[in-house]
């Protein structure tokens, strides 16, 4: 029977929310890994029972957990993320050289073609891969080895590789994004990388149109159109129609174009969603009104979606990995907030309801469509 499984990472553990395809009633399981920050939980697109979780703590470091039964039980796998060769340095907040130091795994992206292959985006920014289901990890050094590596610098959340998009038509073609270095593309499975930031303009760096240095918050792609990319940047919502070679702003009539999440409808490649927040210091909705904004034209023209969302006294944020889409016929959209709510829409965003409230602050939401 078809259904949806939501994998929710929070500041104090992971939760698994499960529903049938009606998506009206949800079972809540958790907290798993209670007391740990769960930055990301993601299932394999090849095996819906294979799930990975990034389990992190400032005290006790990084663990990676794997489930092979859809989140019922978990086993720790390898937690060694050693930079290849001599790590080198990047720019610190004050512009001085600072050694590359592993801190945590921000994002896990299982392969679309190999069941035991999985990628991990980490802080300090680097890309790692496992070819044995997480039992061992190795860095793909071509990314940091790009000549710009020494000039990367952390954003306010740290220098993290937070987005990994795999071209569904070519698994060797991938896009990644780093705060605050920018977006990069590989055509050879990660051996070599090209920065793809032309057209971005960021007023908070010395050269607003630099090759690298942009604080990209999130990238999104529709599987049917791998050359069309959408970006939520520190400010600005951007679009590329040529695989990142150039970008243009599509913020249009958004009330503010600061935010963290961006995602694409499962069946409509030009329908995209963002959650604007007031500013880079005021990480909450304008006037305390939580709104998802949808464009059916790939940007520029946006409409506010508010039915079922709090329209007063709501001062939560939605973090960059905390929105996700299911692929059921009537596309479901889900997001979690720093206030601990998980909202769902089963009608492309026209109406919303909280499917669970009062979780710990939500860091990530990933939807698995179960067949």
């Amino acid at each position: 029977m078809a259904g949806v499984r939501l994998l929710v990472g929070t500041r104090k553990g992971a939760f698994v929310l499960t529903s049938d395809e009606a998506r009206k009633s949800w079972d809540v399981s958790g907290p798993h890994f209670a007391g740990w920050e769960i930055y990301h939980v993601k299932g394999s697109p090849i095996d819906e029972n294979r799930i990975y979780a990034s389990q992190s703590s400032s005290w006790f470091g990084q663990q990676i957990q794997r489930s092979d039964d859809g989140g019922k039980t978990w086993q720790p796998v390898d937690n060694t993320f050693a930079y290849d060769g001599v790590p080198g340095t990047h720019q610190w907040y004050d512009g001085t050289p600072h050694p590359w130091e592993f801190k945590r795994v921000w994002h896990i992206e299982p392969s679309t073609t190999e069941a035991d292959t999985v990628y991990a985006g980490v802080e300090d920014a680097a890309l790692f891969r496992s070819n044995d289901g997480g039992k061992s990890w190795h860095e793909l050094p071509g990314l940091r080895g790009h000549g710009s590596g020494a000039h990367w610098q952390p954003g306010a959340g740290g220098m993290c590789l937070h987005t990994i998009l795999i071209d569904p038509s070519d698994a060797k073609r991938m896009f990644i994004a780093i705060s605050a270095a920018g977006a990069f593309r590989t055509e050879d499975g990660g051996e070599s990388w090209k920065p793809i930031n032309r057209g971005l303009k960021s007023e908070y760096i010395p050269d607003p149109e630099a090759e690298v240095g942009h604080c990209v918050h999130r990238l999104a792609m529709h599987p049917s159109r791998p050359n069309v990319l959408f970006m939520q940047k520190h400010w600005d919502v951007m679009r590329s129609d040529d695989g990142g070679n150039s970008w243009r702003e599509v913020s249009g009539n958004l009330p503010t174009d600061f935010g963290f999440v961006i995602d694409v409808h499962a069946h409509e490649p030009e329908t995209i969603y963002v959650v604007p927040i007031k500013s880079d210091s005021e990480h909450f909705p304008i006037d305390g009104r939580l709104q998802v904004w949808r464009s059916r034209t790939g940007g520029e023209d946006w409409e506010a979606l508010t039915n079922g969302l709090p329209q007063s006294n709501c001062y939560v944020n939605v973090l960059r990995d905390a929105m996700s889409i299911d692929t059921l016929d009537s596309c479901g959209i889900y997001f979690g907030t720093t206030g601990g709510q998980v909202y769902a829409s089963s009608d492309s965003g026209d109406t919303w309801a909280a499917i669970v409230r009062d979780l710990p602050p939500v860091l990530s939401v990933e939807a698995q469509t179960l067949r």
Partner: protein
Amino acid sequence: MIRVVLPAHLKMHANVNGEVMLAVDGPATQKSLLDALETHYPVLRGAIREQGTLKRRAFVRFFACQRDLSHDEPDAPLPDAVASGAQPFLIIGALAGG
């Protein structure tokens, strides 16, 4: 046997209830104790000491016999009361602000 008390997070992670009882090879030091602990519980690798350097993680503390042993040399002998098992060796996540 040396008695080790883990913090709650790591007890859960390693599926440990109560104290851990360890025998160490050679002299009882922080290093030999932690080597033995990680041998018995491989999931603790990287959680108490940094992988590679084996330095104590910045926010982890070691207490025993009402003393803070965090900054003792890893190869320095542990207190006799710890080595004999009379007092436990406490591994604690650092606290600030009470």
